[in-house]
């Protein structure tokens, strides 16, 4: 089943991840074809690609979500494979299928495993079968309110009502008692139907003051699979990650080992291949529970690349071309501590209102152990149609203490203006005693912002 390495790849995305993929292609001697919307006409990474094809107007629905135009571009450019990046069509099983039906490889997992793991209730079932602890809750989608009440009483209030087709922190509602539960279920169904086209919901116990710890995996099409350790993504604002780090302070080595092995069992049970991430929630006692699987490369993948020295994008490409994973688990070492911050064009003093506009001052940080992934530059105009992330800033040091000192220095050096960015909030986090001592949970940022402490 050994296939040949691709000679040309289409990058079905934009911004920093498009740049990331094009860079990997250039190093591998693979031609890259970028697609862009009219709003991204001046994106600098288009010139790094071997070819760039305009696929539509600015809104994603007219461009980056247009599977038909992306595949048409793939055909006229005669590419062998498409890398979907993250977001947009990356976890769209139909798109993966359409690519392969058109004899274009989709650099990601099979359409079936995207479907199976994209159904959050089905993924929970799979995890249980793989002997992995899941957050206590319903076995699958809730049939009716009485069942919801029964389960909620069994696992104990408060509970979370979640959308089966949701994910990424969207479509969740809390219920502290039976009355609220009954009221919120119909709201949750309506919201889910509107947002995801599927009104099925399930129930999970709400873990209070949780930590979010996820495990990176790589699997090839020959049954080989390795984990690449964990990332702690606890620091979030409204379920959007701001800071990610590895190793996680929330778990000891015994738990780390157990979680990483559990992650492998889940993806093996799903016949998964390519890069993927298994998400867990960790309670304040250090107990871990399976949450969901992300069947794509993630924004924060460079954290893992720094501590392991392994290039995840190149491995995705090699795996998709039929290559064997030449890594054995004992080859995947972790070194030092890595931290990533996301710099967004948002105004932290005005409820994080997005701040599109032209960047006239852009000074990137640098020095030993710094990684700065950004598609922006002085003169670049941020457009309002897409997410507000401008850059990912990472530091890698032997210890977390040194990484924090280094990150503070980098945040002071970084100048991006005149648009507002989240750098001031990041300053506060990296000077906050709770963050420095590692005593944080997913509600930390929202509380810090309320107290302005």
């Amino acid at each position, binding site marked *: 089943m050994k296939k040949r390495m691709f000679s040309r790849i289409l990058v079905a995305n934009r911004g920093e991840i498009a740049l990331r993929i094009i860079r990997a292609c250039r190093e591998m001697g693979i031609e890259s074809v970028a697609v862009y919307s009219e709003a991204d006409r001046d994106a600098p990474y288009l010139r790094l690609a071997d070819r760039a094809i305009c696929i539509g107007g600015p809104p994603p629905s007219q461009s980056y979500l247009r599977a038909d135009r992306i595949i048409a571009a793939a055909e006229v450019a005669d590419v062998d494979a498409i890398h979907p990046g993250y977001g947009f069509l990356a976890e769209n099983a139909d798109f993966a299928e359409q690519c392969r039906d*058109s004899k274009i490889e989709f650099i990601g997992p099979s359409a079936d495993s995207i479907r199976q793991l994209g159904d959050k209730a089905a993924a929970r079932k799979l995890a249980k079968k793989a002997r992995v602890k899941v957050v206590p809750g319903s076995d699958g989608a809730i049939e009716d309110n009485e069942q919801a009440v029964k389960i909620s009483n069994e696992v104990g209030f408060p509970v979370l009502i979640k959308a089966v087709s949701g994910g990424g922190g969207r479509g969740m509602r809390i219920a502290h008692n039976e009355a609220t539960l009954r009221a919120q279920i119909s709201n949750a169904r309506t919201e889910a139907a509107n947002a995801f086209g599927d009104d099925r919901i399930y129930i999970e116990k709400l873990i209070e003051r949780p930590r979010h710890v996820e495990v990176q995996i790589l699997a090839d099409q020959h049954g080989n699979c390795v984990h690449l350790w964990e990332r702690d993504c606890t620091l979030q604002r409204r379920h959007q990650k701001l800071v990610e780090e590895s190793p996680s302070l929330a778990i000891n080595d015994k738990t780390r080992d157990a979680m990483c092995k559990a992650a492998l069992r889940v993806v093996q049970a799903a016949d998964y291949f390519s890069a993927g991430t298994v998400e867990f929630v960790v309670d304040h006692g250090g107990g871990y529970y399976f949450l969901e699987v992300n069947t794509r490369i993630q924004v924060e993948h460079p954290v893992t690349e720094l501590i392991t020295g392994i290039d995840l994008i190149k491995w995705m490409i090699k795996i998709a071309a039929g290559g064997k994973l030449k890594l054995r688990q004992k080859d995947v070492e972790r070194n030092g501590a890595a931290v990533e911050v996301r710099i967004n064009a948002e105004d932290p003093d005005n409820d994080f209102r997005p701040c599109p506009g032209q960047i006239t001052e852009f000074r990137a940080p640098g020095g030993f152990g710094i990684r700065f992934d950004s598609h922006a530059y002085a003169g670049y105009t941020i457009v309002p149609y897409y997410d507000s992330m401008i850059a990912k800033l990472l530091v890698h040091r032997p210890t977390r203490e040194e990484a924090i000192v280094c990150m503070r220095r980098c945040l002071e050096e970084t100048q991006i203006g005149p648009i507002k960015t989240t750098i001031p909030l990041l300053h506060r986090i990296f000077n906050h005693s709770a963050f420095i001592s590692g005593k944080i949970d997913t509600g930390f940022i929202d509380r810090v912002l309320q107290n302005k402490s």
Partner: protein
Amino acid sequence: MDIEEIKTLTELMVENDLSEIMIRDGDKRIMLRRQGAVEPPPPQIVMSNPPATLPSPVVVAPANAANPGAPPAAVEPPAADAGLEFIKSPMVGTFYAASDPEAPPFVKIGDPVTPDTVIAIIEAMKVFNEIKAEVSGIIETIEVHNADAVEFGQVLMKVRPE
């Protein structure tokens, strides 16, 4: 207001394809109006902190704020295109000038077209799509060749309207 400030304003207008800009500073007022912006851009977000030497712009009017879906013009059109309408590709695919290899092309230079005239076929994923002129006039130029790959928004033909 000195000449350097006016120069910066005119550059701002061209960069953002604005047709009109008015600035008020105390009892001084300047209005700049620009001809020839062919295609209206979507409403642009003007940066909230303009250079310190200029007073804050009061009103910035894109040429057609009522039509935010219109594709932005990349540059000032050259003089030769003055008055011409462009037929742009609505999709990505392969351009064919005729309905099959043996047939004559749908249109040639000098042919009259109406909005419903089929001027080409663009093929994508084995589906052949008829492309209509959408304008009335005479074909002035044909910008692509048979079997060329075309992208969204690419100019296929230029029409002298009537």
